[in-house]
């Protein structure tokens, strides 16, 4: 039996409280002079034995009532321990990510475990992971015994189940562990920009977990484009080969391929490629036009300035326009016109007048909380001057439109050199295009090393055992067994009623 709220068990000594009180009453008696005991004696002669039994019984009931109540609160669970299991832990390097000690403890709570194997060898308390390919069938066939039940703990890499074939057994259960992050070997990895045009440079920056040189391989649309030796922090920049780039969404993968092992997962990023950006600047101010075109050109090498908003990709404007294009508004004049802005998240409209002096609309839109996520990339030359990004939101997104607290009435030279403004425009555009990719149902592959899903795994193992089951870590945690709480509460209530009746 296991307890889901074991801390309640510390309260168990409290259940003997009624017995202690009884003992205290016995030992510390209060003397009381009464005129005569004649009636009392008569009663006691008749009732004494009954009263004593009655009293002891009530104290015992009180004890049982409290005991059951506390046990009920501690949520006792009877685990499924009919079958005797041999637990086999997949020794693959990728299993390093999991808290295997606590997983073993959890399994022991839920299953009746006879033996634990780590790979082919009996588990001796230490995990020495394989750095080479692991063959699960080979391991299982070596340790299988007739009529035994196996519980295999694995992350379900397809490569490890290649040509899976074992002797038929009675019970085969798989505890399918799920990786929380894509790559075990990268501490962090970032790329920039996410939206590229012709001749755009891609910057890769990150940090790997190993202290020795490792081979970093970069694939662009499944083609190896670069191979470098890295150690600790690294940065890499490259211009993708135009022959490999396709319009729309592209993918970039990064993995470590050392001499003696191949990392069994990797990092993958999405790019949006657009040969050029058509920008419409809606302002009578020459200064504003110059500023915006300068900023755009600093981000994207290929920018075409157009005169019609209908053919543009991005709009920069100093007054509000009714358009569905990606728009950046830099409002400085008071706008008398009444605007109605549809909000995506709230699924309702916000109406009101926009005033340049206080930007009340921005205050209103804070409630929408659609902040563009700012990534701080120290290694990215584009934003390396931006060392500090304030927490205060400066950009508000409403559908495809971004409102900024920057005002063009500020010193234009200062503004154009403000890397933060540049960064925000770049981020906003990237975000919009990557979002578009997702809307286009572009599926991000998890890894070049495929993992079995629960259903696939079930299908794979079912020919090899009479009873099979595939469970996840969450499911095993939730596996309650028979919860006895209600039973104990009922017992407690029953004793409570008995005490009330006897009193």
């Amino acid at each position: 039996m296991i307890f889901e709220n074991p801390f309640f068990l510390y309260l168990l000594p409290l259940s003997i409280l009624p017995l202690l009180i009884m003992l205290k009453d016995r030992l510390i008696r209060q003397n009381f002079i009464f005129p005569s005991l004649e009636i009392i004696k008569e009663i006691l002669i008749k009732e004494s034995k009954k009263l004593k039994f009655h009293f002891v019984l009530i104290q015992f009931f009180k004890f049982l009532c409290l005991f059951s109540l506390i046990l009920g609160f501690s949520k006792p669970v009877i685990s499924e321990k009919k079958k005797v299991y041999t637990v086999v832990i997949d020794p693959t390097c990728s299993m390093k990510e999991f808290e295997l000690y606590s997983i073993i403890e959890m399994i022991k709570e839920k299953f009746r475990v006879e033996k634990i194997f780590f790979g082919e060898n009996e588990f001796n308390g230490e995990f020495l992971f394989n750095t080479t390919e692991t063959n699960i069938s080979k391991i299982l066939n070596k340790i299988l015994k007739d009529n035994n039940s196996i519980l295999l703990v694995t992350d379900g890499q397809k490569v490890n189940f290649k040509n899976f074939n074992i002797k038929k057994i009675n019970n085969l259960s798989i505890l399918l562990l799920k990786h929380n992050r894509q790559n075990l070997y990268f501490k962090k990895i970032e790329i920039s920009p996410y939206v590229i045009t012709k001749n755009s440079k891609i910057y890769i920056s990150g940090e790997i977990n190993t202290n020795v040189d490792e081979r970093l391989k970069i694939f662009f649309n499944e083609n190896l484009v670069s191979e470098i030796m890295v150690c600790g922090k690294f940065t890499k920049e490259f211009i993708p080969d135009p022959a490999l780039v396709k319009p729309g969404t592209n993918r970039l993968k990064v993995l470590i391929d050392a001499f003696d092992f191949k990392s069994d997962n990797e990092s993958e990023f999405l790019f949006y490629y657009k040969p050029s950006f058509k920008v419409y600047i809606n302002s009578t101010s020459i200064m504003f036009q110059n500023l915006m075109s300068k900023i755009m050109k600093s981000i994207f090498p290929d920018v075409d300035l157009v005169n019609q908003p209908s053919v543009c990709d991005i709009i920069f404007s100093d007054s509000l326009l009714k358009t569905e294009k990606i728009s950046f508004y830099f409002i400085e004049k008071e706008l008398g016109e009444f605007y109605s802005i549809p909000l995506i998240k709230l699924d309702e409209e916000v109406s009101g007048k926009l005033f340049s002096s206080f930007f009340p609309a921005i205050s209103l839109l804070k409630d929408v909380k659609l902040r563009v996520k700012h990534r701080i990339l120290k290694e990215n030359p584009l934003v390396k001057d931006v060392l500090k990004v304030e927490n205060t939101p400066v950009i508000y997104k409403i559908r495809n439109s971004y409102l900024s607290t920057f005002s063009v009435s500020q010193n234009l030279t200062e503004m154009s050199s403000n890397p933060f403004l540049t960064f925000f425009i770049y981020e906003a555009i990237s975000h919009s295009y990557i979002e578009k990719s997702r809307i286009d149902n572009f599926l991000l592959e998890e890894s070049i090393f495929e993992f079995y899903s629960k259903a696939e795994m079930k299908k794979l193992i079912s020919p090899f055992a009479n009873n099979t089951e595939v469970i996840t870590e969450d499911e095993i945690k939730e596996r309650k067994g028979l919860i006895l709480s209600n039973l104990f509460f009922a017992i407690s209530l029953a004793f409570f009623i008995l005490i009330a009746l006897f009193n």
Partner: protein
Amino acid sequence: MYLETQAIDYFKNFELGEKFFRKFALEKEGFFSSRRIGSSMEFEEYKEYQPPDDARNIDWKKFARSGKLLTKLYESFAHIKVNFLLDISNSMNFPPALPKIEIAKKFIAIFSYLLLKNQNEVFLSLATEDYYEAGKLSFENLEMLLSSVKPEGRLSKKAFYKIKEGGLYFFISDGWWQDDFYEITKILISKRINFFHFLSKVEQEFSLPKTVNLIDSETKQQIFLRPAEIKEKYFLALKERINFLYNSFIKYSLFYQLMFIETPYYHNLKNFLDIV
């Protein structure tokens, strides 16, 4: 001070009426200790006027004829001999804060006052393991006699054998007579003794601590008890006793009056006198 002003004030406009005296006179002949001449009822004889005789009773016709101031005297029922028999056993010394015996003494004091005012004779006797005659009560010795009474011993039936027959007896006790309960009840009835049963609320309600070592005030015997366990049975037993006493006394035309000491004793007396 047993004869309290508040009790006297309470009975300021109260006189023991004819009804009271007739009741006891008719019910028990030979009550009269001596034939007395009083100021009420039927005319009996003349007596030479002497202050503080009531001037209203002067027979002015006789004065005109004889030149002597003669007052009319009447035969009265008022002249009876009343005996208060007080239980002074240790059980009467309960509850400690307001012992029954003290209330009983105050009760005797005011009752005696009312009787003495009507020129009756009042005697005090004490009952415990033995019977003692404390003496005749008067306005002068009332306080002294009552204050000399202290609780002691355990009530015994032997004490009742010594009670002289004749006269009006009121026995004041709490009814805790140990093993002699039924015997004493019998004797009281046979000797035509009326009974004022004094009880406290604690005894009635059995309102004791949760667990207690009960000590008998008379025998000093100890019993460990959880009063709540026997409370109901105690009520029933006590009720049974009270009913037994009431029925036994009433059956023989004797007075049985249950009095709770928490009720002012003069209220209890007034209730009794009203019933009479």
